[in-house]
């Protein structure tokens, strides 16, 4: 026979379940993008955001953050106490962020050349003009890190410091399912884009969900039921859900390049990658280089990012390994408490005052 304590536990559990159902059916509005900014430059759908200072300007070298072309970049400024943007602003950095916008069918021909030689170069030109300087510090996250590495190879004089965070650079590493599912003999990406055009967020999210099938479905919601009375947890949960489901399409032409040159060809580290007919040589990277990896990142295995080191000529290099996954590195409590203050110290030491 069940005792009183168990009956109480079951009743409490049911109450939590009802609350969680109610919350998921009627989620309250969540504020993301916590820091104020101005849109200082626009090109096609790209917007260059300049954040309003939170402290006296301490450094002459501005910082440009470049996020992936998969999700919205506000993951770097998701909530006040865990905002990478805010951390740099509080130290006195002038922070810019590229928002790629949401590509439509009309943008399906956008390619790597456009991202590097137009979008990024124009953004850097604008920042330098606004600050009367010739160099910037570059922080690239995920595919934004891949772009930043290529940009630094092609325009090394424009980049004073390079920070690469959880970026797929070397694809010839023991990787997760994404590496396997995109193999040449399995996935004909040209035919795929011929059929579907841009690679939509739904397709990508289904793939990402399968990286941790039960954790990303049942267990995620079980966690919400368990902690439904914890306001911070619930807010964080919905903030992440909002961001996760706020993805953007990858332009068809770039998607083909990304899969063929990256996952299938590993051309960047082989020295075979060409952008608008120009070879991309990683040896041109001589500026101070900081690599940040999440030790349990199953989207971009740490070795993929660390694989950049043997190919560059930078003498001043440093690696931060954070015990987190791909997203935890930018929004994780531990990363903000321990790692980010050290990253900011590193950049402060390497920036002109």
């Amino acid at each position, binding site marked *: *026979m*069940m*005792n009183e*304590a*168990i009956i109480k*536990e*079951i009743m409490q*559990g049911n109450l939590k379940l009802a609350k969680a159902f109610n919350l998921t059916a009627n989620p309250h509005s969540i504020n993301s993008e916590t820091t104020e900014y101005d849109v200082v430059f626009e090109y*096609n759908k790209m917007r260059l955001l300049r954040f309003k200072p939170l402290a006296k300007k301490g450094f002459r070298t501005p910082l440009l953050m470049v996020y992936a072309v998969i999700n919205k970049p506000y993951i770097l400024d998701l909530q006040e106490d865990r905002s990478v943007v805010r951390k740099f602003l509080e130290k006195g950095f002038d922070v810019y962020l590229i928002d790629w916008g949401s590509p439509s*069918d*009309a943008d*399906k*021909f*956008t390619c790597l050349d*456009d991202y590097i030689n*137009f979008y990024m170069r124009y953004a850097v*030109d604008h920042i330098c003009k606004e600050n009367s300087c010739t160099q910037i510090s570059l922080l690239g996250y995920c595919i934004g890190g891949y772009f930043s590495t290529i940009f630094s190879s092609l325009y090394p004089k424009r980049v004073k410091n390079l920070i690469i965070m959880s970026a797929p650079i070397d694809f010839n590493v023991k990787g997760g*399912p994404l590496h*396997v*599912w995109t*193999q040449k*003999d*399995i*996935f*004909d990406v040209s*035919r*795929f884009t*011929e*059929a*579907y055009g841009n690679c939509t967020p739904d397709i990508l999210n289904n793939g990402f969900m*399968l*990286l*941790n*099938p*039960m*954790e990303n479905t*049942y*267990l995620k919601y*079980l966690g919400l039921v368990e902690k439904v009375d914890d306001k911070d947890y619930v807010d964080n949960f919905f903030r992440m859900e909002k961001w996760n489901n706020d993805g953007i399409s990858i332009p068809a032409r770039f998607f083909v390049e990304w899969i063929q040159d990256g996952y299938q060809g590993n051309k960047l580290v082989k020295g075979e990658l060409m952008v608008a007919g120009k070879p991309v040589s990683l040896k041109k990277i001589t500026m101070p280089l900081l690599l940040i990896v999440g030790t349990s990142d199953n989207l971009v295995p740490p070795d993929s990012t660390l694989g950049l080191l043997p190919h560059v000529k930078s003498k001043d290099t440093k690696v931060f390994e954070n015990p987190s996954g791909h997203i935890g590195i930018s929004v994780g409590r531990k990363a903000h408490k321990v790692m980010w203050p050290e990253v900011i110290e590193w950049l402060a030491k390497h920036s002109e005052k």
Partner: protein
Amino acid sequence: MASSNSKNNDKTEELIEVMRKYQEEMFKNWNEAIKPGSPMDTTNSALFTNIMNNYWEKMNMDITMAMPQIMKGDEGSLQKQKELFVSAMRAYSDMLKEFLVSPAFLAYLKQAYADKTDMKIRLDKANDENLKLFGIVTRKDLDDINFNLYNLNKKLDRLQDAISELKGGK
């Protein structure tokens, strides 16, 4: 008018025929994929057995460890059951992850990619043919326009860059 209607009927029949053939082919492919000896052979236990065994082994161990407390039925036993559920889900997740990179699944994935894209391309082509009959702009027409616009814009940007460079602006 009558000739236009008859032409439309012919096209519709053509489209139905394309779809019927596609369905036929899809079933044929599916039967090929699961026939004995194929990578998706559901009767061949060797493909899935190792993955399943690992999973059941872990599950059995967890259940054996948790059972005494659950059987007591006192405070905390519900928590134990929840932990067991989470543990089972994690083990199941591990099993799925292993399966999702197994040769059996990859063979299926390859076939699925190919079938889905083929179907989409064929249907789009058939739709475009029908739209053309009514003089409606097709996806291909829009793609061509967008591609031309994209190239023109890019040329313009490159020219502007060249002008700036000549002026010594950049």
